[in-house]
Structures are given as C-alpha cells and as structure tokens.
C-alpha cells in the first residue's frame, strides 16, 4: 500500500475525531456535584462563621452570594443556586458517594470563601 498523502491522513483524522455529545445527564451531574461541594464547604464554614462580624455574616448568609449558580442555570432552567441547595437538602443524606473524594475541593472552596469575606471586611 502506498503512503497516504498528509492531506488524506488529515481527512481521516477529521472523520475519526468527531466531537462527541456529552450524555444528557452530565450537565445535571456537574450541577449536583458543584452544589454538593459548595454546601459541604458551607457546613465546614458554619463553625468558623460564628466568629464573624455582622457585616461579614451578611456576605455569607445567602449562599447565592458565593455559590455560583451558573452550572445550575446551564443545566436547564434552575435559575438560582439556592434552589439547587434546597433540592439537595430535600434529598437528605443521599449525597453522591463521589463527594467523599472531593474533600480537598471542599476545603479549597471553604478557604476561598474565608479569603473573600476577609477581603470584603478590609
């Protein structure tokens, strides 16, 4: 078999490497995990928040102040991160098992929130 010209290889690559549509449930899954992580971060912050001043607390009181609802919106019509959190609470302890592998993410987000609140306080 003769060597294929480079353009043929490129043509094959274009045909072989088509974009792949994500499964329909992936957007919801990302939304749920994002909400779960941020809620877990909120729980981690709860004890720390008792030491905050009133002005600092105001910035934390509504999770929508720091939980970005973007994933929820993109996932199809849940227009507020708060609704996602309510839904997650409704599901009680059925938190996704993969959350157990996200401890670092929870701590990072909690740290991020602490920094944001401190910066606002300055």
């Amino acid at each position, binding site marked *: *078999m*003769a*060597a*294929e*010209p*480079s353009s043929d*290889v*490129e043509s*094959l*690559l*274009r*045909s*072989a*490497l*088509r*974009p*792949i*549509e*994500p*499964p329909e449930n*992936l*957007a919801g*899954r*990302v939304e749920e*995990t*994002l909400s779960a*992580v941020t809620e877990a971060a909120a729980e981690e912050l709860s004890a720390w928040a008792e030491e905050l001043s009133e002005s600092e607390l105001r910035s934390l009181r509504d999770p929508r*102040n720091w939980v*970005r*609802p*973007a*994933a929820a*919106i*993109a996932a199809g019509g849940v227009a507020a991160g708060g609704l996602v959190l309510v839904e997650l609470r409704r599901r009680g302890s059925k938190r996704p098992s*993969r959350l157990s592998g*996200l401890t670092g*993410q929870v701590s*990072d*987000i909690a740290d*991020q929130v602490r920094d944001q609140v401190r910066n*606002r306080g300055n």
Partner: protein
Amino acid sequence: MSDSEKVSVPAEESKAELDRAFERLYRDHLRDVYSYSYYRVGNHHDAEDVTEQAFLQAYRHFERAQRESNGRPLRPWLIRIAHNLASNYHRDRARRPQRVLDESEPIATPHGTEQIVEGREELKRVMEHLQHLPDDRRDALIMRFALGMDNREIARALGRTDGATKVLIHRAIKQLEEEMSTNGS
C-alpha cells in the same frame, strides 16, 4: 444609576457578571471538554468524571483566570485543566491494562461514537495509530481535529509556543502517515 449606587453594589454586579461569564463558558464548552476527555481516557464513564472535575476546577479558579486572560478566550485554559486531569487519570491507572477506544466497554447510551469506528476500517486504523503516538502529539491532534482548535489555542493549552506547536502537529501527522503506510503495506 448614580455614582453612589455604582459604588454601593460593585461587588454584586461583578459577581453577577462573573456568574454569567461562567455560565457561558460552561454552556459553550461542555462538549469540547467532554470530547477531549473521552478521546484521552477512552470510555464514557471516566470521561464524565474528568469533565466533572474539570468544571469544578474551572469554577474554583474562574475569577483569576478571567482576570489574567486579558480578554483572550478561555477555552485553552479549560482544555488544559481537562488535559492535566486526564494525565493524572492515566498516571493513577498506570498499572492497569491500557485500552484503546474500540476495545472499551460497550456504550450503554450512544453519543455518536459508534459512527466513528463503525464500518470504516481506515478510521479504525487511524484511531489505533493515534493512540500509539507520543502523548503530546496525540493530544495536539485531538485538540486540532476533535475540537477545531487553532495552533495558538493548542499552544496555550499545552503551554508551548505557537511555533513549537506548529512543528508538533506537523510531525504528528507525518508520523501517522508513515506508520499507517508501513503497517498497511
């Protein structure tokens, strides 16, 4: 809106704008991140995990990335996150047998992948050879052909110069061409 009002709510406005920007990024590039993840890890289950992790990391660092982007598109940054996660995935599973795309588990819900390999032997061949390219060459080709990224975007995603990326892609295609020719003869 008066100046004082502007002064009183800049954080909220900024936050809302940031949220909208992240939403756009997520909506515009979910398929890119998923496609890249799939071609790197070779199965839908792990591609979903990598995609999910990529957006979690993006979420955490979005504000800084946007600030430092100087208006440039954030797709290369997003793909770089997926790229690093996929590399970690392979490192974590180094002892497991490697699978190529067409040997992976049956797909419960088709997402169009079947058409990639179905029926056309030459497409199977090019995918097999692609999987055996050096990592950087393979990854650059996935970005170019699956995601339609140009040299500059690929360079940013891989942390290389534009010139080095152009050479990388050229050599990758040439290697594929030579190996397909050799193995096909």
